[in-house]
């Protein structure tokens, strides 16, 4: 019996229409078979009825769906074959689009290298002093003093402070170490002699700093006639010979025995330059200044370092010792309201600025600044990377379509795009490490550091890895998730168009990039402007040809007259003088002056400067009123010269002829000079008093004869010098170099900021270049049509460049107020500072625009000049 009978058509249709696709085949067949069976058994009516009922029983919602199980078994996204295929395709894509790959990788590698260098710099700054084992427990005793309505904060305290802390507050501390400030001293052994910076310190320092002894012992410092040398100092004095037990002389008068040699302290520590440590005991017994002042409570020249006892807590100890000095002061000295406190070692380096007794930060601001700059440069590189990969990925929509058509799953496409971005990030990272390694010597030189890539530091690698993964995910996420969501049919039909929305994030990112770049440019310009402005500041004297020599011994001081005459005879110098302090420093701040009409509430310390009569002639100061010192007046031994600031401070109308009392000694004012910039060129000139020094003046300052070559002149000077001070090393310093050194910190910041800015701009331009070429390529046909219709090269160029120029202008509008705000507050830190003219903003803007147009023009001109016949034939 052939099968003439069929179940009702409508039921069959209903079934095909509603029954789930997965089981339609078998269930349909089963039902047909059953229909035949029922038909044969019970006739047509029964069969039809049961068929219809059963069809309903397999329609939703009654039917259970069969889950697809194991349909794609064996093609896991993570199988080795798949992964190697991802990378193969990624490699081919990189090789195919050489320019994009180059831009992408270069930009990212530069950004990463910059970030790495900045990261190392930050690490170095933040680990300052951290190499000392006890760094969390060590502190420095500091004090605040109220002087003439101004609160000064400094770390010099009176010499008996250490002893007093030990006596009255000993329970708080494990070690208390009094120390001289770090100064240059002559170390001599037989005929070799060197100027080396060193300190006189109490023996506790060896434990406090956990000195690593190469030979001898830490206990060696307990012997009052001993000295500990740093490894490098021992090497320069004794060569390879054993230094221990040798006897050397400090400043040609103190014979000490080397009792130990310690390994040089790391570069990024406060004591890095300390070449020797001699006993404090020696200083207060055998050195005149020390023994005179060892019990003086009103002379602040000592540093005291402490290590806290195990259970002591810094802030409470700091509070407890506050009156340590005030309790010892009497009379008017108590007006200073001196208060001592502890400054923890971890903060010495980064938090060293004080204002009105409060900490106002310090280098930590630069740490933040560079941290932010580094983050921004890295961000610029990431933006580039994202922009380029999104721009390019639109071109790859077709590829996505084909891949989907041949059965690629979404997960696999995601994997493929991610592996591509990870490959690029990885290559960039390898290059970045190479670049950083190459750049590190220059960077160290610029930043005055001794940094190296932390090859062995797991944190460094963890950070690098985290960053790579982050960038890879960030840059890869757009193509991975957006492109892989396309419907294959739409893409292959060519109906897919990236909407206008797709461009907006890219434009926002370009604006961000240029905002950062423009801000950096303005910042750098202003840093250099400020340095330049300050360098050009009138200093009140003539720096050229001035040479200073420190004289720790009295050899020249005691025979100054014949020394000067002999020098003048050589013809190598214009004149020579000796002073109590170097011209570029203001070491002596003193109160205790009185004059007619003095306001007792405004007793701010004067800078005092002991000189000889030839001082004015030597340095070339400008006398404004009265006259210079002169040997013709024997009374000049008790004369003083004021600077204009002092006259203003004292409120004198006719200063010349007035009498100023220094303690009980009356001194008469013979002249007024223009203020000389001494310590910091950024600060206003302080009121100063110049007097003829009745006591030893140990800095010899001379002006070399102009027109004579410096080496020749110095050779002649040296001969005379050797005759009078044979035991002192002839270490001279040019004053203009010393002065320039005062700009070193700012110049360093400027140079660092400058190079980072250049790199930031470079990265941004790279990105722009890539984007421009992408846009130009996308609009090839449009440009072709325009040209056929008679558009000029100029109009095509404008068409393509306008959008980018607009973005940069927007960026400038955002950047200018930001930069203005940051820079105004930066400049406020300097009392002597330049203004912030609008022209800087305008020129930066013009410059940024010019760079942008140049970058874009390469691509837009290329597109504009292309023969339309060619571009229209492209497909």
């Amino acid at each position, binding site marked *: 019996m052939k099968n003439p009978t069929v179940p009702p058509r409508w039921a069959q249709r209903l079934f095909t229409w509603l029954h789930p696709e997965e*089981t339609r*085949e*078998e269930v*349909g067949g*089963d039902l*047909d078979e*059953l229909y035949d069976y029922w038909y044969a058994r019970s006739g047509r009516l029964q069969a039809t009825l049961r068929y219809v009922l059963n069809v309903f029983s397999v*329609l939703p919602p009654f039917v259970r*769906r*069969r889950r697809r199980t194991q349909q794609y078994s064996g093609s896991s996204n993570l199988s080795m074959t798949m992964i190697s295929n991802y990378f193969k395709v990624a490699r081919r894509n990189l090789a195919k689009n050489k320019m994009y790959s180059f831009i992408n990788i270069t930009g990212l590698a530069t950004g990463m290298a910059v970030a790495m260098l900045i990261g190392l710099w930050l690490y170095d700054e933040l680990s300052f002093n951290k190499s000392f084992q006890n760094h969390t427990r060590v502190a420095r005793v500091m004090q605040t003093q109220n002087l003439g309505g101004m609160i000064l904060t400094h770390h010099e305290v009176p010499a008996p402070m250490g002893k007093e802390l030990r006596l009255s507050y000993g329970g708080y501390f494990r070690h208390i170490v009094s120390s001289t400030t770090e100064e240059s001293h002559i170390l001599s052994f037989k005929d070799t002699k060197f100027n080396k910076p060193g300190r006189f310190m109490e023996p506790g320092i060896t434990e406090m700093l956990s000195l690593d002894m190469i030979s001898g012992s830490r206990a060696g410092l307990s012997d009052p006639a001993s000295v500990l040398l740093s490894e490098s100092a021992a090497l320069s004095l004794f060569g390879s010979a054993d230094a221990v037990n040798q006897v050397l002389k400090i400043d040609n008068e103190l014979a000490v025995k080397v009792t130990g040699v310690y390994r040089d302290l790391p570069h990024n520590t406060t004591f890095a330059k300390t070449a020797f440590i001699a006993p404090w005991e020696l200083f207060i017994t055998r050195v005149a200044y020390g023994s005179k002042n060892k019990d003086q409570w009103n002379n602040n020249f000592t540093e005291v370092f402490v290590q806290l006892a195990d259970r002591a807590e810094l802030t409470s100890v700091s509070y407890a010792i506050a009156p340590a000095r005030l309790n010892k002061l009497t009379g008017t000295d108590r007006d200073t309201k001196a208060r001592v406190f502890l400054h923890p070692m971890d903060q010495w380096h980064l938090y060293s600025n004080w204002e009105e007794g409060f900490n106002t930060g310090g280098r930590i601001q630069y740490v933040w600044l560079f941290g932010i700059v580094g983050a921004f440069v890295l961000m610029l590189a990431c933006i580039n990377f994202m922009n380029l990969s999104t721009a390019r990925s639109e071109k790859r929509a077709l590829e996505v379509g084909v891949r989907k058509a041949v059965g690629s799953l979404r997960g696999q496409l995601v994997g493929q795009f991610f592996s591509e971005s990870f490959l690029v990030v990885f290559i960039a990272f390898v290059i970045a490490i190479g670049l950083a390694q190459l750049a590190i010597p220059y960077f160290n030189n610029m930043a005055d550091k001794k940094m190296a890539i932390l090859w062995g530091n797991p944190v460094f690698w963890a950070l690098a890895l985290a960053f790579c993964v982050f960038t890879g995910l960030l840059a890869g996420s757009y193509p991975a998730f957006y492109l892989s969501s396309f419907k294959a049919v739409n893409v292959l039909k060519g109906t897919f168009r990236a909407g206008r929305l797709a461009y907006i994030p890219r434009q926002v990112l370009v604006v961000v990039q240029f905002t950062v770049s423009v801000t950096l440019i303005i910042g750098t310009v202003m840093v250099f402007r400020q340095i330049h402005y300050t360098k050009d500041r009138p200093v009140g004297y003539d720096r050229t040809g001035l040479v200073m020599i420190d004289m720790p011994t009295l050899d020249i001081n005691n025979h100054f007259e014949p020394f000067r005459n002999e020098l003048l005879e050589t013809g190598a110098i214009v004149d020579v003088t000796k002073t109590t302090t170097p011209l570029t420093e203001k070491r002596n701040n003193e109160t205790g002056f009185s004059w007619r009409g003095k306001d007792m509430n405004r007793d701010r310390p004067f800078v005092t400067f002991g000189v000889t009569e030839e001082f004015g002639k030597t340095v070339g100061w400008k006398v404004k009123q009265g006259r210079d010192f002169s040997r013709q007046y024997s009374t000049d031994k008790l004369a003083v010269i004021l600077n204009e600031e002092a006259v203003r401070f004292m409120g004198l109308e006719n200063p010349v002829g007035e009498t100023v009392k220094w303690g009980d000694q009356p001194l008469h004012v013979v002249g007024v000079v223009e203020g000389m910039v001494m310590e910091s060129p950024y600060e206003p000139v302080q009121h100063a008093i110049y007097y003829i020094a009745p006591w030893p003046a140990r800095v010899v300052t001379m002006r070399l004869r102009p027109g004579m070559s410096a080496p020749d002149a110095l050779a002649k000077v040296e001969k005379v010098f050797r005759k009078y001070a044979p035991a002192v090393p002839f270490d001279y310093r040019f004053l203009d170099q010393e002065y320039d050194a005062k700009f070193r910190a700012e110049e360093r910041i400027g140079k660092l900021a400058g190079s980072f800015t250049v790199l930031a701009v470079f990265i941004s331009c790279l990105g722009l270049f890539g984007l421009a070429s992408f846009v130009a390529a996308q609009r090839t046909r449009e440009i072709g049509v325009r040209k056929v219709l008679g558009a000029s090269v100029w109009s095509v160029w404008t068409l393509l460049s306008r959008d980018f120029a607009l973005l940069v202008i927007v960026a400038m509008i955002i950047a200018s107020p930001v930069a203005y705000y940051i820079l105004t507050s930066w400049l406020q830190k300097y009392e002597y500072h330049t203004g912030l003219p609008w022209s800087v903003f305008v020129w930066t803007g013009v410059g940024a625009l010019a760079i942008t147009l140049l970058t874009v023009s390469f691509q837009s001109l290329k597109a504009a000049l292309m023969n339309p016949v060619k571009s229209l034939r492209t497909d």
Partner: protein
Amino acid sequence: MRRTYLGEFEEIVLLMVAVLDGEAYGVTISQEIEQSMGRLVAFGTVHNTLIRLEEKGFVRSELGGATAQRGGRRKRLFRITALGSRAIQDIQQVRAELWKQIPSHTLELGKL
């Protein structure tokens, strides 16, 4: 302990799959239930139960055996898996245990 709960009808279908030994598919199972138990069952119930049993791992299936009668469409043939046969054996065993424990007079009383 039985690992998976097996409903009454599931148990019957599973048993049918075992009985039919390789020839089990929607049609044969429905017919067998109808003939041997006298129960009229909607095809959808059988279909759903088979899917559920397969999800639980008691049966496995493959497509095959297209005939002209079916309009050239393939059947889905079911076979019992090791897990499935273990399950019905467990059930059988538990029942046998229980049968043994029934005191003889209960059943006799039941006969009255």
